[in-house]
């Protein structure tokens, strides 16, 4: 196998009760690549992300981070340190300041000393443009700022890969922009990212490749230009057309 595959997913299956959410998903991610997963709601996009760091174990299939099989590893905590996760609902720790949120993983997981952790936390907050909010608590921040703290928190762990689970779905359009800007700059810096989103404009410009999923299967996978202008599947075209229209209308 190629050493360039940072993440390799093979034949994932998952059912919740009688509902088969994933019906054999395989793809891979190279170092420095940004892939965006799109598709209608309920097609299992977020489930894939939850499988990758084993917050929810798959029923079948394998996931390799470099050469480690995530699904069978004995030290999942170690693997999770290397995979950042940015949540739709932010998942910030409400009793800690922005800085505290970024530091806690460094202190409690990486066992860094306090001073070092603080420096790194401030550095990461600067990266997402929140230096002046370092001492604010989540309840004092806007949604966009919260999500940027979420991103800084993921970055601070120096992950090999960051997963974004609809990072802007809980934000109004005005705040979406500031989060997407941060994500775009990460992509430019060469961070490896797997993003589930409905932001087609963003996906089109940032993704190296897009994965279109429906009913638990990958319908089509291609660079965005090809997917948008000349998709092989009729269904891809319908979906992208509908979404693009929907969102560009929302943006005005």
């Amino acid at each position, binding site marked *: 196998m190629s050493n360039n595959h940072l993440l390799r997913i093979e034949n994932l299956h998952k059912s919740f009760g009688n509902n088969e959410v994933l019906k054999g998903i395989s793809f891979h991610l190279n170092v420095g690549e940004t892939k965006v997963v799109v598709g209608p709601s309920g097609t299992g996009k977020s489930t894939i992300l939850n499988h990758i*760091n084993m*917050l929810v174990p798959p029923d079948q299939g394998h996931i390799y981070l470099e050469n480690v099989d995530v699904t069978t590893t004995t030290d999942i*905590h*170690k*693997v*999770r*340190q290397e*995979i*950042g*996760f940015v*949540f739709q*609902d*932010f*998942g*910030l*720790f*409400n*009793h800690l300041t922005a800085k505290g949120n970024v530091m*806690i*993983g460094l202190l*409690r*997981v990486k066992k860094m000393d306090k001073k070092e952790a603080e420096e790194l936390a401030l550095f990461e907050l600067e990266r997402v443009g929140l230096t002046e909010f370092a001492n*604010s*608590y*989540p*309840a*004092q921040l806007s949604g966009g700022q919260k999500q940027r703290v*979420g991103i800084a*928190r993921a970055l601070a*762990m120096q992950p090999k890969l960051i997963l974004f689970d609809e990072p802007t779905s809980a934000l109004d359009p005005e705040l979406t922009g500031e989060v997407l800007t941060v994500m775009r700059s990460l992509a430019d810096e060469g961070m490896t990212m797997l993003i589930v989103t409905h932001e087609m404009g963003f996906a089109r410009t940032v993704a190296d490749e897009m994965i279109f999923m429906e009913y638990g299967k990958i319908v089509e996978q291609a660079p965005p230009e090809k997917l948008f202008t000349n998709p092989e599947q009729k269904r891809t075209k319908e979906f992208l057309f509908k979404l693009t229209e929907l969102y560009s209308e929302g943006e005005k």
Partner: protein
Amino acid sequence: MEGALVTVRLAIVSMLIGFIFGLPLAFGQVYGNKFIKGIISIYERIARSIPLLVILFLIFYGLPRMGIRLPEFLAAVLALGLRSAAYQSQIYRGAIQSVSGSQMRAALSMGMKKFTAFFYVILPQAVRIAIPPIGNESAILLKDTSVVYAIGMSELLRQGFYIFTNNGEATTILLAVALIYYILTMIINKLLSLFEKKYKIPGIGIEVGVNE
């Protein structure tokens, strides 16, 4: 009044026992497997449906039949504490569940172990949420300590009895006893609300909007 002192000691130690047992019970109820959850819920049902006096008698008069004879104070705090543990665990369980969920997921996703996440992320917030109901429980517990007079301990109420059997002024003495309970309860409430204010998370609750 040394009776009041005994009452206070009883209340504090029982509350602590309730905390020491109640918190793990709550942890088990939220994160445990079916078996653990089952056992805990049986314990709680029992502890909450038997009158305190009966629990006390069982421990003080019942256990010696099995060869375990406990001193009065220990029997008293065990009865009060074990029962309080059941109530306290319900309080903590609710508090834990109201914080858990997405924050637990976020903590785990950083590579934190479940227990670390519980300790550093969930617990600090749950404790804050639990303060008001815990104040309630302490107030109830403080007054419930009066039942231990039934096994002959001289706490506040019994000391009151001593005095008025000696000089006959029952009403005055009982009112004085009531007043002391009242003052003690006030002190607990005051302390807890100070604690609540001190550890308030900025931006949550009434203070919303204070930030620029």
